[in-house]
């Protein structure tokens, strides 16, 4: 199986280039994931660099651009990919080396969404209670693993990464706006009500298409807008 992989080592390369790799057919096993293949290719060339950790689609480390679509290598079946498999780092993010990108800005925008519970009332002896219905409203929001596939596929985030929070951070904003235990809804909505933070989203929906966890950041952004309108009338 043929691979074409983006290579760039800032210490030795003046410009990035695509390198061809071949994985022998006898090394390919049924049920193999793309990450398994990458690990075998790394045995051929140990300078090939990429992030990975849990290998089960939970840690979100091995996000990359696979045949033009962002995804996690560890849960992408090799048999579903058309050869030659073209692997590139996330678009729109600075490349550190090969498939490894600098996600500082992504995490900065995540912090901007204040992804923690804000509740000033005295801490109860047991946990803060929620009705089953209120808890259900968090489904589809809390499962994000921060892999970055969504934000790195969003043209609005490519254009304004410093000012538009991006779908991942906005999904987290929605998660705490929806949380019945959170007391800072007004504060959260006010922080998002400027020309850039939330409203650079134009409903392109690449985020929803690529999310490896099947989440829907586009809907979450729409829900934030609806909550804003309800609160302002």
């Amino acid at each position, binding site marked *: 199986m043929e691979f074409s992989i983006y290579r760039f080592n800032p210490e030795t390369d003046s410009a990035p280039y695509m390198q061809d790799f071949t994985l022998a057919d006898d090394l390919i096993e049924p049920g193999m994931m793309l990450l398994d293949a990458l690990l075998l290719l790394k045995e051929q060339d140990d300078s090939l660099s990429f992030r990975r950790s849990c290998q089960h689609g939970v840690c979100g480390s091995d996000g990359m651009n696979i045949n033009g679509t962002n995804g996690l290598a560890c849960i992408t079946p090799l048999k579903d990919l058309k050869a030659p498999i073209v692997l590139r780092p996330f678009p729109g993010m600075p490349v550190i080396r090969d498939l490894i990108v600098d996600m500082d800005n992504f995490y900065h925008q995540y912090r901007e969404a204040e992804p923690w519970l804000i509740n000033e009332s005295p801490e109860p002896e047991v946990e803060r209670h929620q009705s089953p219905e209120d808890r259900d409203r968090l489904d589809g929001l809390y499962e994000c693993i921060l892999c970055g596939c969504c934000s790195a596929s969003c043209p*609005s985030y490519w*254009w*304004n990464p410093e000012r538009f929070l991006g779908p991942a951070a906005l999904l987290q904003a929605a998660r705490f706006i929806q949380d019945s235990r959170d007391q800072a809804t007004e504060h959260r909505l*006010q922080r*998002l*009500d*400027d*020309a*850039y*933070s*939330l*409203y*650079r989203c*134009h409903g392109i929906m690449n985020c929803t298409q690529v999310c490896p966890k099947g989440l829907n950041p586009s809907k979450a952004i729409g829900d934030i*807008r609806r909550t*804003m*309108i309800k609160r*302002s009338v």
Partner: protein
Amino acid sequence: MSVLSGQRAWLLQRITAIYAGLYVFLAVALLLARPPADHAAWLGLIAHPVVWLATATFIVLMLLHAWVGLRDVILDYVRSFVVRLTALATVAIVFLMLGLWALWILIEAALR
């Protein structure tokens, strides 16, 4: 919430779109049902207070709608603050002039 807040601009664009859609639908229906026979009839139609007010409102709201749309494009693509401000001001001035020109035409039509 500032004048250029995200929510205000977003809502403005949608509300103006609803009005523009209704106006175009009703205008086309009216022109198909009762097409003006000549220039004088056309002027009479425009001078009718309801048509005049609806058309003047349409022009103002269409320009506001277009302003939000072009503002979005400029905010998306123009990174330099100075160039962005210049582009926004240019669009605002051109739209203001277009609006005044269109309203002047409507006033002239009503005064004939």
